[in-house]
């Protein structure tokens, strides 16, 4: 199963036929395994890594550090849920260190990010403070290097 997931994680468009050839399993077996992985939410979604900057859409990303007073019984989970339900929160992590929640916020403009942080995040009862870092340049996204790089060519024939 892991071998199939690893292949799909790298290339969501790999067909059951291709995966079967790569893993030495039957096409039927692969298709069934993928179906089950989808049903049981091992596979959540198939997405595309887009270089939006190159496509001409700017957008604004910010990494927001959120300091939270944990609540009795539920710890950080309740406030995390309050935050991750906002579509502006692209990723939400509980982290160790000097702050508690790391929130990646995306919006169209800096003003929108600022409004979201001040009105939605900072105003939550258990939130004690926020620090917002606006993203300036994207070098690598989800394992993909975005700055153009050239692979040195190999000789076409070596023995």
């Amino acid at each position, binding site marked *: 199963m892991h071998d199939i997931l690893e292949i799909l994680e790298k290339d969501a468009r790999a067909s059951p036929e*291709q995966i079967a050839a790569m893993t030495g399993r039957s096409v039927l077996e692969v298709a069934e395994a993928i179906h089950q992985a989808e049903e049981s939410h091992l596979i959540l979604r198939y997405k595309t890594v887009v270089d939006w900057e190159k496509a001409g859409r700017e957008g604004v990303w910010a990494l927001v550090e959120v300091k939270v007073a944990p609540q009795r019984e539920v710890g950080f989970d309740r406030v995390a849920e309050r935050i991750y339900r906002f579509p502006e929160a692209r990723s939400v992590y509980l982290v160790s260190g000097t702050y508690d929640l790391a929130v990646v916020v995306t919006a169209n403009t800096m003003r929108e990010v600022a409004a979201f942080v001040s009105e939605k995040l900072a105003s939550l009862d258990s939130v004690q403070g926020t620090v917002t870092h606006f993203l300036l340049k994207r070098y690598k996204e989800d394992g993909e290097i975005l700055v153009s790089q050239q692979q*040195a060519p190999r000789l076409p*024939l070596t023995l």
Partner: protein
Amino acid sequence: MSVAQSKEAADFLSQRVRQIPASGIRRFFDLLASMDGVISLGVGEPDFPTPWHIREAAIYSLEKGYTTYTSNYGLLELRRALATHLEGRYGVCYDPDTQLLITVGVSEALDLALRAILNPGDEVLSPDPSYVSYMPGTVLAGGKFIPVPTRMETGFRVQPSDLEAKIAPRAKAILLGYPSNPTGAVMEREELLQIAQIARRHDLLVISDEIYDRLVYGVEHTCFASLPQMPERTILLGGFSKAYAMTGWRVGYAAAPAPIIEAMMKIHQYAALCAPIMSQKAALEALRAGEAAVLEMVADYDRRRRVMVKGLNDIGLSCFEPQGAFYAFPSIGVTGLSSEEFAERLLVEEKVAVVPGSAFGAGGEGHVRCCYATSLAEINEALRRMARFVEHHR
């Protein structure tokens, strides 16, 4: 010196060099160089760049000013790390002070080994087909090369009985190269044990070129020197090129009994002096922290291997399952073409480059070498083109 004098200049060449035939695929190589848009399955190296942490370690060593000669044997810390690596992996024990030599790629190690042991006329037995430098290397060292035929039916593994049948009074060494370039064959442990017995019975040395040792799929690689009573009559050759995608760094090694390493070092110190220090620093980093990258690359090659082998069989180029290296070695019998004709026409008609099996010895005729260390998209496109080609030439 001008071009016009080249005929006379050629007269200066030694008999020994003239004995070596010009590579049969020179013409093919020139043709390939003149064409654009070719998908090449003709490469003999990984398509991964060297893992970044290894490159970074070399950059760091340059920044620190490591730009000098090293000991002729190679950096002691690299030899120590190598001794630990070989013992951990194969249970073979080598003294880093006297039994290990760091060389300029495994190619140099092979040349040193042959020159260190051969007297004029001594015979070296080696599977046919085998890596291109085995025969010329033997001849240049004054030896006589004795090819031992291998067959597709036995997965191109050299059969001990075939080997023994070729042993004559002047036989000095057996030269093995498994996992094999060009066939992808991996020897079974039982067969190697029999070869070990033969080596003892006929008092032969074994040179075991294990440059592809880490690239095996679903089977264990047996290190020849790990077999009982073999360390004292084995020259183990290895390197970093294939496992760590470090072909351009040119760093390899030999492990053998001290008198043999000392003799090899004697030649090495006059011919090469030492392997480049930055490459040795990179190799050290590879041994210390490269394991995860090796496993990841092997898993990736394995997927492509399956696609290649299935694809070749599907289009009628019957192919035994290679268990090592990164080559498939299908039979082209169905086309009725010689391996050189096949490679040349495939290149001209479909722009796919493969290597004629005949480049690896007479035993390679009727096959071509297809390297699957290239992207899946290219493998699939190459297979589509080859299917069309085979259909056309059946």
